[in-house]
């Protein structure tokens, strides 16, 4: 396997890696100094030219998003999305805990580029260690004049505030996050207007993910060429493809020998990631299904494991996309009906309840699976599940946000790719021993 020098993770795990002192000793904040000498438009152009695409799931080009702000905007906010809740995903947590200053530096650079004086980090409550690491980092930055008034003598002011969520997956949806930050129910908004036009507190707002902002730091520090030296160039057959450049934090978990977060150039195959880095499937077994990028992306079969994990790869084999690049491995001793039940229950629990197709659809899919797992399923339930899954989400156009696309995709993939698991279960009439079926709700 080729050697690769990690950048986002290069300091994670070293002694005092979260402290400002060690960060500066390793060259920290020189990218910010460099950026502050450039005009905001030049910084935006640099990020745009590097081809950085958002790491939160949708893969929207970051520099392009920044250019959507109205030119005459007087107040702009940056909302940093640290509500990492997609099942299987923990890359943001790793860098927030282990190297928070590269994120704060990225925030400061982004704020300079978008002419923003206030940034809010929306952090999910469960990340207590990340909260304490970021809190300390922000306090140290205020003392060192890296945040506050007239940062580094540039004449720019910047305040960064931490805002803790309260355990709701939907707050990771950018307009749900904005509503929650405003002190309301996290009900995603109808778009347009997009947040860049009217977002937080009705002002133009940019919402960026933690890993995206960490990439911004390194693009400014190491340059466009460095970033574009990794990854996959745009597909010539697809004029709308922006390519998949740069390093990516891949999270691997589930039935593997060495679960963990691995930084690699975009485009590694799922098979190489699992076998060469994550130590292979546990107990000498084979993979039955591999989630390519967080639960909502669907499943890769064993035969599809040579799919490159870039922004286009998973989509070509019927998955929703790359998502958060969180890979979950399911071994060949596991039944897909139970795996799918786990997925459906999650989305049904996390549906915000605003759109009827999502609230009812996710709940019914869960109930149908409960029925099958209880030995009371009928063969027609399989197509009923597909019918519900095909009817919910922004792809069929029945909901405001993409939560139910994420709920539907694993259903479609599981039934299309593992239909015999469902048929066999229903025909056998057996009952699942899954603990959570008896555990109920609270």
């Amino acid at each position, binding site marked *: 396997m080729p050697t690769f020098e990690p950048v986002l993770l290069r300091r994670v795990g070293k002694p005092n890696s979260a402290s400002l002192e060690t960060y500066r000793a390793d060259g920290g904040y020189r990218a910010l100094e460099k950026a502050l000498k450039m005009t905001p438009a030049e910084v935006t152009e640099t990020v745009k030219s590097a081809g950085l695409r958002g790491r939160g799931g949708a893969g929207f080009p970051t520099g392009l998003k920044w250019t959507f702000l109205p030119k005459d905007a007087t107040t702009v906010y940056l909302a940093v999305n640290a509500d990492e809740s997609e099942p299987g995903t923990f890359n943001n947590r790793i860098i927030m805990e282990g190297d928070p200053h590269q994120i704060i530096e990225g925030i400061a650079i982004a704020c300079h580029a978008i002419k923003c004086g206030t940034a809010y980090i929306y952090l999910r409550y469960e990340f207590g260690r990340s909260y304490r690491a970021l809190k300390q980092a922000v306090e140290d930055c205020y003392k060192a004049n890296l945040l506050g008034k007239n940062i580094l003598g540039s004449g720019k002011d910047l305040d960064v505030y931490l805002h803790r969520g309260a355990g709701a997956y939907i707050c990771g949806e950018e307009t749900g996050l904005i509503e929650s930050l405003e*002190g309301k129910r996290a009900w995603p908004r109808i778009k347009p207007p997009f947040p860049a036009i009217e977002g937080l507190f009705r002002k133009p707002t940019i919402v960026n993910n933690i890993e995206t902002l960490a990439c911004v730091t390194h693009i400014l520090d190491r340059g466009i060429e460095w970033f574009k030296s990794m990854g996959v160039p745009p597909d010539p057959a697809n004029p709308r493809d922006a390519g998949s450049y740069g390093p990516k934090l891949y999270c691997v978990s589930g039935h593997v020998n060495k679960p963990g977060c691995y930084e690699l150039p975009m485009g590694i195959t799922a098979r190489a990631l699992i076998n060469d880095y994550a130590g292979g499937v546990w107990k000498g077994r084979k993979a039955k299904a591999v989630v390519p990028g967080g639960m909502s992306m669907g499943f890769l079969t064993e035969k599809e494991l040579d799919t490159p994990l870039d922004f286009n790869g998973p989509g070509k084999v019927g998955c929703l996309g790359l998502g958060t690049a969180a890979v*979950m491995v399911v071994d060949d001793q596991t039944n897909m009906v139970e*795996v799918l039940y786990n997925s459906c229950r999650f989305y049904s629990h996390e549906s915000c309840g605003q759109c009827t197709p999502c609230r009812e659809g996710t709940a019914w899919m869960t109930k149908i699976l409960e029925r099958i797992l209880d030995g009371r399923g009928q063969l027609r339930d399989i197509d009923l599940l597909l019918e519900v899954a095909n009817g919910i989400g922004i792809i069929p156009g029945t909901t405001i946000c993409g939560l139910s696309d994420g709920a539907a995709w694993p259903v479609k993939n599981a039934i299309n790719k593992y239909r015999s698991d469902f048929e066999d279960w229903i025909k056998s009439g057996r009952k699942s021993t899954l603990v959570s079926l008896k*555990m109920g709700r609270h």
Partner: protein
Amino acid sequence: MSFLSEDLRQKIIAELPKYPTKRAVTLPALHHVQDVLRCVPLEAIKEIAEILELHPAEVHDTMSFYGFFRDPEHKLGKNRLQVCRSLSCMLRGGEEVLAELCQKYHLQPGNTTPDGKFTLEFAECLGACEGAPCMLVNDECHMCLTTETASEVIEKLGS
């Protein structure tokens, strides 16, 4: 005489300068109250609303969206334990850990021990999948658990 202590009121008021609207302090205020009182009583909702110049119904509307906040009938114990049951943890035995803890401490998920020492809940993905199965104790995550190591964590909790 206000229901919230002066200390709590000051903590809430100290959040106000961070945001351009008072309403944005709703979640921070609810967190401050629940951290201390282990639930959010109606009196607290009314006083938060007063500080934030909102109607109590608006505070309750936000609060009831987040399953995180508890009313006095479902008051949390001194510690809140959440065992993850999402896919990576399920695949590595998280549900069994939760079931065995429930049995050992005679609890149903969501309930609190009679001495108020801890509340045991299940959680959806805690974002610690490399250490599955995992359990959140207040806001510290414990990873790679077995029922034995989880019980050790519980025995060490302050009551």
